[in-house]
């Protein structure tokens, strides 16, 4: 209730913004996009390496995992939830896959089994408890996150497993194609994002996600099985976390039980920055993608300029505030 009115009071201009199909793909990101464009322009002007292929490849390689998770996380956020367990699931999946692979499974069956197991955990534990039993997403995913991370440590005996010989993981997480320029991982991430976007836009299931997030009661009265819809988005984000776990193995050449620690916060920031609303029902995958790209380019830019990590913290904070402030400003102007 409160949040609904927040939107109504604080952002009346949002009403005026939507033209055409209700979820306009561009408007909410103007502030962010502006800052991003300025940033890229600044980089192009001051940093010749920025536009080198090797830097771009590096940028894309580092973006693949957050992009994948942000795309899937958007679905969860659209239902007014956040999955705090994806980092842990990512870590555990990596260990699971490594154990299968070192236990003699060939890569593809190992991948499928891991997807199956991870998706099942996400769907039947997170999804069921949150969607069907009605428990709070925060406590549930915090709890499962704790359990899964603990399991990853215990199972791996706190030791990373060498996976440098695993071709599938290396392909997903490390290899670049098309003249060594485009990492396979980013293609996979973008592919998943496009798929999820199409699902959100062109399927009844996708629209149900918006409906459940926008007004769960109204959705139920229209016959949407909201409990299952919610459960399913946790399943989907779980599958993506597993995939991200395998990509991470390829990137690090080890299966690290620590992989993905804290990634949920980075991912949530990216999604929210991209204009997906915390109260559910509003936003799109492209916002989340833009948010991720923005954060990655920003980090890349700060690193290219050789800022110390302390200064990076300060500058990142300032730019974040600026981007959102610009967005508010624009809304107000459109408003007055």
């Amino acid at each position: 209730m409160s949040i609904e009115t927040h939107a109504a009071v604080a952002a009346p201009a949002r009403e005026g913004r939507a033209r055409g199909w209700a979820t306009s793909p561009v408007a909410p990101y103007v502030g962010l996009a502006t800052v991003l464009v300025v940033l890229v322009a600044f980089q192009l002007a001051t940093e010749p390496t920025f536009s080198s292929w090797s830097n771009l490849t590096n940028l894309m390689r580092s973006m693949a995992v957050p992009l994948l998770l942000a795309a899937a996380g958007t679905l969860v956020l659209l239902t007014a939830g956040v999955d705090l367990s994806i980092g842990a699931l990512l870590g555990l999946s990596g260990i699971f896959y490594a154990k299968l692979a070192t236990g003699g499974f060939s890569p593809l069956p190992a991948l499928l089994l891991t997807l199956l197991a991870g998706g099942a955990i996400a769907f039947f534990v997170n999804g069921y408890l949150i969607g069907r039993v009605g428990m709070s997403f925060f406590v549930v995913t915090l709890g499962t996150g704790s359990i899964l991370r603990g399991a990853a440590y215990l199972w791996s005996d706190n030791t990373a497993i060498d996976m440098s010989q695993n071709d599938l993981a290396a392909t997903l997480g490390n290899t670049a194609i098309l003249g060594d320029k485009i990492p396979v991982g980013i293609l996979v991430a973008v592919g998943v994002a496009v798929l999820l976007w199409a699902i959100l836009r062109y399927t009844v299931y996708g629209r149900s996600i918006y409906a459940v997030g926008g007004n769960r009661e109204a959705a139920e009265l229209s016959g949407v099985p909201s409990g299952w819809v919610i459960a399913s988005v946790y399943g989907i984000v779980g599958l993506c976390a597993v995939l991200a776990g395998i990509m991470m193995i390829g990137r690090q050449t080890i299966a690290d039980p620590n992989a993905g620690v804290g990634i949920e916060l980075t991912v949530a920031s990216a999604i929210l920055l991209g204009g997906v609303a915390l109260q559910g029902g509003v936003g799109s995958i492209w916002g989340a993608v833009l948010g991720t790209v923005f954060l990655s380019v920003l980090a890349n830019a700060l690193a290219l300029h050789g800022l110390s990590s302390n200064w990076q913290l300060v500058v990142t904070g300032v730019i974040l505030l600026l981007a959102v402030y610009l967005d508010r400003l624009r809304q107000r102007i459109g408003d007055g």
Partner: protein
Amino acid sequence: MSATDATAPPLLRATGITKRYPGVRALDGVALELRNGEAVGLVGENGSGKSTLLKILAGRIAPDEGTIEIDGAPVRWSSPARALDSGIALIAQEVHVQDELSVAENLLGQQLPRRRFGAIDWSAAARSARELLDSIGLAHVSPTLRTGRLSLHDQQMLSIAKVVRLRPRVALFDEPTSSLTAAEIERLYAMIAQLRAGGTAIVYITHRLQEYFDLTDRVVVLRDGQLVAESATTEIDENGLVERMVGRRLVRLFERPAEKDAERPPRPTALRVRGLTTRTLRGIDLEVAAGEIVGIAGQAGCGRSSLAGTLFGQWPYDGEIAVDGAPVALGSAARAVRAGIALVPEDRKRQGLVLSMSIAENLAMPSWRDVARGGVRRPAAETAWAEGLRERFGIRAVSVATVAGALSGGNQQKIVIAKWAARGLRVLVLDEPTRGVDVGAKAEIYRIVESLAAEGVAVLVISSELHEVMRLADRVVVMAHGELVGEMRGRDATEEAITAMAFAAGKESEV
């Protein structure tokens, strides 16, 4: 087997339905039968359990006791989705739409047209939504618009049309007309007739008693959660209905008191508005005298609510507003309150109440500083004060400590009015003050508004119910397209007169 065959099991049979909430028995052993094509009116005061019964039938909440059978087979819903699968659809009391989704999606819901691979065909969706919108008189609404931008009545029409389109076997209407205008009500009637012709059984709730006589075959009266009477609609009249509802006679609710039209000495102007212009209003000039009740009439979307909101500091404006001759600058609701202006908003759930807080706290909210001492509350005094208001306004609740969200719709509305009555007001703006309020409470609200006026408060009443405007207003102003287009004495405010005035203005502005 014919649908009307008396020996066949009824389409729907509910028996012994009981639902308890802490401190109240919302329903107590209620039984209801529905046959194909039949329309049943569910009658009762605010809080008598009508909505609770419909929610149970629609699978929205589970009963504590009782059984529901469909075609003689017992059912137990796990969710509204299951009930909908069996053809039972609810149009809920509070308007429920997806604010953030497009109009077409709200209309078509789970039945969006699809192409190959199950992909939604958005252009086909827009086309069929367009047709549907035209057929329900929403020709001015684009299917691709964000639904949150529509006015409340358009949203209500949308949620009705959505259900009608599904052709359910049972359609449960919970006060569908509370936010509709006369023309829209006509269209609703037509839709209901169409549904019934197709064999759909209807359950209908309203607080505009005339509608029962327009629509239903049979009425079922609830009082305090119990079924107290059932009769064919033809065998009962409005007074009889009221008597069964409230246990006493209540006469001439809408009769205009003669003293309203008596000559009265001129009174000082309490509210003066000059050239008020906003995004939706153009050059409004208006004066309301202390103690005067001015009705605002007009077609839906003519800017009445915009005017009310602007007078309460909700929107930026150009022009002058003065209270008791002193100009005021209304930048926010808090400033308007300080200037002695109060608003009873149109959408009580969104704008009127904090549902998670108690009745006492909602009542006290605008007066917190007065009830408290130095910013510190005095619980005992506050409770006593709130109890006083509750009695005065007849708010039915276990105690003033009950959370507002647990009240029936009508009782919620009484809180929204009552919280302002406690303040030293100069101007009171009421936007649809009796929406969803039962006859007894309506009479009560009229009495209160009149007594406030008698104390010298200038009152502006916006209402889509014309007899309400005629009953209350000393003077009526008519709005069209964000402008004041005319004015008449309260007793002359007939539907024809108002429509003619608004229509003439419309012609002019088009020139």
